Each structure stands twice: as C-alpha cells, then as structure tokens.
C-alpha cells in the first residue's frame, strides 16, 4: 500500500455518487417545461419501483437490516475491551490477585476498592475486591499495572442494570470455576506461559 493509499484508506471517495444538479429554471416557460418533463417521465413511478424492489429484497432475498438485539447479537471485534474480568487460578479457580494494591492506587476515578488481611501464614489474602463500574472510565490502567494479569478487560459490553449495587459484584467479574478452561489469556508480563499445561502440578501442601 502506497503512502497515498494509506492516507486515504478510510475515505470512500471512490464510491461516492455525485448528484447532478441541473440549473434552476429562469423563466416561466422553463419552469413549465421542467414540470412537464418531470410529470411525463414518470419519475414518481420509478420511485415506487425502487421502494418495491427494496421490499422484495428484504422479504425474499434475506437483506433485512434489523438485528433483534437481545435475541441475536452482532459479533464484536476481538480487540474490543470493555467490562473487567478477574482471571482465576487454573488450579483452584480462586482469584489470581495477590493483593498488591497497585490497581487501587493507580485508578484515576477511584472506583477500585480492596481489603486485604494477612492470613495465618502471613500471606496476603484479598477478602474484598470491588470495581464500581458506575464510576469506572475504562482507562485500562488497572489492567496495565497488574503484575499477575489478574485483572483484564474482557469483551462483555452489556452492563446496564437497575441497581447501582449490581455494578460492583465481584462474582460477575471473576471467571466461574466451570468456565476456567475457556478462560482467554492475554500476552504480557505475568501471562501464563504457552507450555503452562505441562508445568502445572498440585501445590505441595508440606514444604
């Protein structure tokens, strides 16, 4: 692709149909001639024909435009990033989050809140984690800063709700345990390596 082509690649100038606008009638006689032309060249019936053709296409040639949204959905781009997902650990299904608090710190709209405690082994445990989607501006900083790739942006875009409380349900964000094998991993620092399946083994309970 040449530079010119690259520069104008989104402009459909080639496909534009320019409408020919004839000069307006100047005298009464010209106006009369125009009316006669338009009346007897059956332009109105050409219009009817076009519309009937559209109906024929829609009904019998499967060119209906309507998408009945909640029942059928259009596919979205795989690069689309919308509502957060909390990825689970492949082994146990629990949240992959290590409770470092970076996402909470970096969040510019202050919509991430987390509560951590030390468990009896002095390991950090996340007891509460919530993203207020009503405040979130989807800047993507949390996903970028997460060292474990625990929080990512997924493709879910239907986040309308009747109650604000629904915007913070962590259960909706965390991958359910039966969906773990379908969990899509994203490349990046901290991502699961391609040969992770071979390396995976039970965590030894006693050291």
């Amino acid at each position, binding site marked *: 692709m040449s530079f010119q082509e690259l520069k104008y690649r989104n402009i459909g100038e080639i496909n534009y149909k320019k409408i020919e606008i004839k000069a307006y009638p100047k005298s009464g006689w010209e106006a009369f001639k125009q009316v006669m032309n338009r009346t007897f060249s059956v332009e109105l019936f050409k219009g009817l024909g076009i519309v009937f053709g559209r*109906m024929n296409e829609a009904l019998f040639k499967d*060119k209906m435009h309507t998408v009945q949204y909640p029942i059928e959905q259009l596919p979205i781009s795989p690069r689309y990033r919308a509502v957060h997902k909390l990825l689970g650990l492949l082994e146990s299904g629990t949240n992959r989050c290590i409770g470092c608090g970076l996402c909470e710190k970096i969040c510019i709209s202050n919509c991430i809140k987390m509560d951590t405690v030390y468990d009896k082994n002095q390991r950090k445990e996340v007891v509460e984690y919530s993203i207020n989607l009503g405040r979130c501006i989807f800047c993507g900083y949390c996903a970028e800063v997460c060292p474990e790739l625990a929080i990512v942006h997924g493709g879910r875009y239907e986040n309308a709700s009747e109650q604000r409380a629904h915007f913070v349900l962590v259960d909706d964000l965390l991958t359910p345990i039966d969906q773990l094998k379908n969990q899509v991993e994203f490349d990046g620092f901290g991502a699961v390596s391609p040969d992770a399946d071979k390396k995976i083994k039970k965590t030894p309970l006693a050291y």
Partner: protein
Amino acid sequence: MDNEILMTIVKVVIILAVFSALAGFTTYIERKVLAFMQRRLGPMHVGPYGLLQIAADGIKLFTKEDFIPQFANKPIFMIAPVITAATAFIAMTAVPFVPGVIVSDINVGVLFVLGAMASGLYGPLLAGMAQANKWGLLGGARTAIQLLSYEIITGLSLLAPIMLVGSLSLIDMNNYQAGGVSHWMMWTQPVAFILFLIAGFAETNRTPFDLLEHEAEVVAGYATEYSGMRWGMFFIGEYANLFTISFLAAIIFMGGFNDLWFIPGAIAIILKVMFLIFFFLWTRAAWPHVRPDQLMWLCWKVLLPIALVNVVITGLVAMV
C-alpha cells in the same frame, strides 16, 4: 317494516364493528409495509409477528389520560374527534361494500358519500381552532385549505363518470361496468380516475399531501393537544375515510363488485380495495411531501383546469 329496521340496525352494527377493527388493523399493516420497504421488520414483539400490537395500542389509547388544555374551548375540543369519526362512518352508509351489503341504496349515493366525507373537515378544523395551540391552529388552517380545495377536484372528477352513467347511485355505477375488465370506467375515463385518486390522497390526508399533521413542520397539526381515545377517534376516522375512498375508486372506476373472470364479485372488490390500500401505503414509503403552496398550485392551476376540460370533452362526446 320492523324487520327491515332490524336488518338495517344489524348491518350498521356489523359495518361499524368491521371497519373500526379494520382501521386498527390497517395501522399494523401500514407499519409493517413501511418497515419492509425500508428493510426493517416493523412491530415484532407483541404476539406472533407483532400481530397483537393493535391490542397493545388499543389498550394504551383507552387507558391514557383524557387531557383537555386549560385555555381550550372545552365543548368544541371534546366534540371535534367525534365529528371526524362519525362523518367517516356516516359516509359508509351509502357505499355498497360487497353485493347485497349496503345500509341504504339511496339514489344520490355518490353525492351523499362525498357530502358526508366533506363535512368531516369540520373535525380537524374545529379541533385545530379549539385547542388554544398555535400548531393546532396552523393544522386547522391547513385542513381548511386542503380539504376544501380538493373537495372540488373530487366532485368535478366524478362528474364525468356520472354524466356517462346517468345516475348518482353507486349500484348503478357498478352495474354500468358489468361487462368485464374492458368495461371498467378507468379505461373510458382515465383522466377522471387519476384526478380522483390524487384528490383522494389529499382528502384522506395521505402522504404526498399529509400537511395537516406533518410532524416536521407543525408538530402534530390539529391533533397536537389530543391524547388517548380522542386522538384515536381522529385516526379511526382517517382510516375509515381511506377505506371509503378506496371502495369508491373500486366501485366507480375499477369495475366494482362485478365478477372478474373466475373470481366472484365480493372477493374481486375486496382484492381491488386491498390493492388500493397497499398503493396508499406504498406511496407513503416512496414519495416526498409537497409544500402547502405547491398543494394549492397543483389543485387550482393544474388539476382544476384538467378536470373542467375533462368534463367538457365528456359532455361533447356524450352529446355526439
């Protein structure tokens, strides 16, 4: 005698019920046809293929608040929709719908139907003037100019067929064309047929001439302040007028309820009316509006001379 009165009442009730229901159903058909012509689906969610949309709309109209504006002229505001609906149905009394179904075969049928339909113009006019709303007033003014002007075209265009038939009764008009398709009045009176259709569009307030409640210009015109069933009555009246005009066109110009080849007359006229109704919806999807001044220009400077010339030529031909 009592039996006759009873029969008339039964006929009236049946016609009233059928055409009120058809008026509602036509709104559904209209939405569907318009949607298909724009490659949409139209109403789909209420009932199978949206068929119960009429019921939903009806429930909505009946349960909506009957609102009367503070400065409106109350009695006139309240009675105006009734005039539209009533005159539309009164006009149907002299129309033979299918063979044998006519409320009263009066010998001035055409005159009566046109007169009753023309008096329907008081509905929108009074509604527009009574509601203390500028959009309503504009809509009312447009009603006056549009319906009044096109009444003349309807009358003059029908004059030529009446001269040929020699009777004002719609049944006589129908019997005049009994000889099959080649005897249809639209072949001997094509100009009158086209003029009548154009005037019919204007009188039923359909798209190329729907200036009375053209949203983009006058919000809802004469119906701006109306809600609920009063608004609904305007539209029942409008769709009833649509059916009356279609039946008139079918009876006077398209062979009426005479048998068509192998098709029995009753079905033939229903098919013709269905086609005409579809044509009304079809033009709504395809054709643009005209401006009020273009409407007046078309009526007085184009259609009226053509109608007069048509009447004169018909008279000359009939004399010779």
